């Protein structure tokens, strides 16, 4: 199997499962308890929190453990607009993950002011448009750091500055699910109040995420209950997942230089082979300001649904961006926002590389793609 769908999820990094195991078994305690087995769990939880805080330039109390990227996005946005700040508006962009866009749609249905900013043909947001969209009723601005479908990197520091120029009180959130482990993330440098991270995208467990919440930020919880996480996220802690998340985060950050060099080279090599072999190939991933490991291409006259099936049967795992529950490929809202027609979007395929990717795999997969495409032509 050649796995080129790392943006969907990536294999767990070595040692993570082993680090988690004790907290699923003998150290099973509820960290909120008052006895020894709970103290051991609580200690591991707080170690994990400190480590993650350190990796993004935060302090430990600013780290909220959640069930993943979707929950973190929901909490950031719903929490901000409902926080009784006197402002309840959301400004976000057309290329966000569904966790943000569907939350925006939900809020709109309940009467919250929502503005969706468009993007250019590289899926890039113009900071001036953020400034224009933010007004006195805006509570939070949400712009994703690296787009999951195209790998477009946004200048988040510029987005924060643009938002705060228009309204200094506005909170700025970024979904960094695709960025952590590849891009440099320091919440102060980026001027962020809220930041979403998902563990399984960098080799941690699924069902585990982080929301960074800047100290002093008022946030109405989405999950009400026992008041864990300083009341910001109730529910008994999944200590094993928190430990796994921190362990993987450490490994991913240590491995980050390789994404800027080796992994990027593997992706570029794959791209070069496709570009040479398919003269009319369109690269949807922008040339400038691209991530190290995404590649989204349109192969005219080749339906992505068919290509992905045939690649699957040859052991190559790729994707067409987002998939609905039934598993049918849907037309990507990101590619549409970039101006691609629905037909062009149906001819677009995403290959994403990760910490296990090798040049040999890239060559073999590219060869298989070229072979299949030549048979369709």
């Amino acid at each position, binding site marked *: 199997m050649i796995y080129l769908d790392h943006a969907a999820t990536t294999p767990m990094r070595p040692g993570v499962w082993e680090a988690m195991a004790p907290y699923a078994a003998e150290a099973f305690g509820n960290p909120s308890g008052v006895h020894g087995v709970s103290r051991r769990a609580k200690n591991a939880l707080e170690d994990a929190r400190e480590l993650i805080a350190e990796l993004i330039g935060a302090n430990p109390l600013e780290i909220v453990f959640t069930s993943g990227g979707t929950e973190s996005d929901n909490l950031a946005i719903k929490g901000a607009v409902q926080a009784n700040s006197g402002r309840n508006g959301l400004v976000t962009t057309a290329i966000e993950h569904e966790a943000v866009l569907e939350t925006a749609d939900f809020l709109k249905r309940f009467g919250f002011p929502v503005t969706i900013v468009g993007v250019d043909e590289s899926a890039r947001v113009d900071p001036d448009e953020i400034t224009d969209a933010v007004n006195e009723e805006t509570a939070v601005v949400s712009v994703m750091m690296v787009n999951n479908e195209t790998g477009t990197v946004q200048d988040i520091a510029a987005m924060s500055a643009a938002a705060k120029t228009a309204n200094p009180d506005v909170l700025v959130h970024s979904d960094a699910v695709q960025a952590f482990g590849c891009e440099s993330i320091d919440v102060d440098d980026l001027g962020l109040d809220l930041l979403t991270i998902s563990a399984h995208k960098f080799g941690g467990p699924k069902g585990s995420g982080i929301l960074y919440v800047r100290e002093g930020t008022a946030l109405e919880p989405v999950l009400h209950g026992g008041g864990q996480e300083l009341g910001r996220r109730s529910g008994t802690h999944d200590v094993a997942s928190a430990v796994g998340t921190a362990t993987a985060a450490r490994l991913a950050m240590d491995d980050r230089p390789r994404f800027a060099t080796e992994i990027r080279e593997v992706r570029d090599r794959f791209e070069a082979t496709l570009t040479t072999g398919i003269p009319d190939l369109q690269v949807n991933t922008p040339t400038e300001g691209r991530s190290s490991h995404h590649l989204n291409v349109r192969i005219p006259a080749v339906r992505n649904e068919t290509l992905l099936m*045939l690649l699957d049967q040859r052991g190559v795992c790729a994707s067409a961006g987002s998939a609905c529950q039934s*598993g049918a490929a*849907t037309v990507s809202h990101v590619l549409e926002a970039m101006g691609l027609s629905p037909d062009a979007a149906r001819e677009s395929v995403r290959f994403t590389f990760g910490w296990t990717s090798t040049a040999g795999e890239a060559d073999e997969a590219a060869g298989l793609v070229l072979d299949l495409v030549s048979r369709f032509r």
Partner: protein
Amino acid sequence: MSGGVDSSVAAALMTDAGHDVMGVTLKLWSGPHGEAPTTGCCTVSDAEDARRVAAQLDIPYYVLDHTDDFKDGVVERFVADYASGRTPNPCIECNRIVKFDRLLRRLDDFECDVLVTGHHVRTRQSNGVWHLMRGSDHAKDQSYVLSMLTQRELSRTLFPVGELTKKEVRRVAAGMGMRTAYKRESMDICFVGQRDYRGFLRDTAPEVFSSGTVVDTEGNEVGSHEGIVGFTVGQRRGLGVAVGEPRFVIRIDGGTSTVVVGPREALGVAKVYLDQLTWTDGHGGDGQVMAQYRAHGEPVPAHLQGDTLVFDEVQEAIAPGQTVAFYDGDIVLGGALIASTS
């Protein structure tokens, strides 16, 4: 693979016979927010059943998006047919347009030799010609809905469960411990769901509800109605017409939005005019045939001349839009749409 027992067993029989099999489910319909239907024949849980059966058989499984084909070819036509006073059969159109045209065209792309479905029909080849036959289980026979298939489709399709009775199909499924073995059959039109089709039309095409008059066979106005789609030929109840003897819908005129009612005798149909006449072997012609105009009706003797089919005996309550299939014993000769009746 619809997620029903028939297509599950079809896949299993092909796998058992040593073929390289892949399972596909067609995504045909979704709501305004892209959600799959929860009732009818293409629900999320049906797709999950299909996926689980494919996993049990250890074959690759994919969901193919044919929602555009279905919307353009089946649903819009369904609405247009009702709006013009016809009685469409969307399942026939779905088979003809989506499964046996659009999907079949993709076989080469998928590197597949044949399409296999769970329909209860059989095929036989003799002298290089493919014949379509009723399924072994006459009670479950689906040859009527496939009567418009031709050599192009039949030569690339296999129907393994047509050789079995439904009871045998269930026995095979149960023997393999399949989750679909005792699954209830879905009778609803998938995109209509458990509402009746009028509710569907009211929600999706309110423009087809334009009021009009109810007249008797002499043309005298006897009442009014809120839209012709509320009526089907042969309907007796809910006509909103108070007269002494039972009255039935005889005809529906979409052009003038008029519903014609009359006594039972007026339901008689001596002949029908046909549209889209196709022959399984590509060259049928005039002559005596056995004609079946309902999915589970009995075939009746009739004489075909050009695009006119004259019944040996007068038939009752046939609506334009229905399909008529021609048989010679168990063999399907061809099929056509009924354009009008007289």
